[in-house]
């Protein structure tokens, strides 16, 4: 019975040891594992200024402007604290729309505008039929109008 118990203890200790080790490693590489920076991160100086990075946030309502053949577009990415204007030329993904998550890859300019080479849409975790979404929106809007 004894060697069996010892073996069991070794396995448990091994798994725990490995978990702690990987936790430390992941923590050390934390900044490299970040897929995107928010506009607040950029203003806080955390994003690299001299090379390409990804900027993530929400497309501000009413900020999307398309030019010419519709390939040139600019919009404002916001995290509701800070916002950064983004310029992009290319095809936008299906889920790109105002008030939805977006991730743009490109470079920040000196005037705190962002030239994007690629734009990805970030989907949120909500799934519902259109009627439910409409009902939710109406429910959200009605107390606001009552206050006015």
């Amino acid at each position, binding site marked *: 019975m004894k060697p*069996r118990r010892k073996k069991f203890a070794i396995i448990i200790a*091994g798994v725990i040891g490995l978990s702690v080790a990987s936790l430390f490693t*992941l923590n050390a590489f934390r900044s490299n594992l970040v897929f995107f920076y928010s506009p607040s991160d950029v203003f806080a100086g955390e994003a690299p200024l001299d090379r390409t990075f990804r900027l993530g946030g929400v497309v501000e309502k009413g900020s999307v402007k398309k030019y010419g053949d519709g390939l040139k577009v600019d919009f404002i990415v916001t995290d509701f604290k800070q916002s950064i204007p983004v310029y992009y030329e290319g095809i936008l*993904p*299906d889920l790109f729309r105002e008030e939805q998550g977006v991730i743009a890859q490109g470079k920040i300019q000196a005037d705190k505008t962002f030239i994007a080479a690629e734009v990805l*849409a*970030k989907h949120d*975790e909500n*799934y519902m039929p259109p009627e439910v*979404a409409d009902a939710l929106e109406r429910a959200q809007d009605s107390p606001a109008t009552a206050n006015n």
Partner: protein
Amino acid sequence: MKITKYASPVIFYGFSGKLIPWLGALTALLLGVGLYLGLFVAPADYQQGESYRIMFIHVPSAWMSMFIYVVMAVAGAIGLVWKTKLSEILASACAPVGASFTLIALVTGALWGKPMWGAYWVWDARLTSELILLFLYIGFMALEASIDDPRRAARAAAVLALVGVVNIPIIHFSVEWWNTLHQPASVTKVGAPSIHPSMLAPLLLMAIGFKVYFVTIVLMRMRSTILLREKHTRWVNELLETKS
């Protein structure tokens, strides 16, 4: 009459053979109803339209890829400690099934990602850790295949499976710990799931269906491994004689 008697390959072979037809029928029923509800009855999504329906395959596959890995690692650990033949065979039977589910999750995710995100693949934490899971499964199978003695092979592979188990919480929590392109969990979210009941029902049916399918297919794989490993024993020879 103890529960451990089922760990004997002979007894296991007998009773698993009786279970398999029932489990197979249940799999067909669950997947049939789940797919019908998911593809024809559930409403379109308010943002993604019809494209979201791929999640009825993608999400249960991704869950299975992690679940099977845990089963495999636990079976491996039991085999290491108690040296039970059957748990070694179970771990070995899990690997290709888990690898297939991982591949399905990655491929369906990529097909959904292109129109929705705008990219087939991005190196975010969730996608990368799921890819590592596929490599762990492949490594497990390769290591097992490279050692001739099946008992030694099972022990070596079990150690690898246990090392890789740290990846499972990383996959699950990756969307919370880091900024990822992949969306956070909808169903296991604290509080109410942020998915409409009409979409949740087929998703859960598919998830249960995949689980039952996994049990069915693993039992079948274990039975054939048992026959192969015990081919020189009297009970297998007797079984073969009565079958032929």
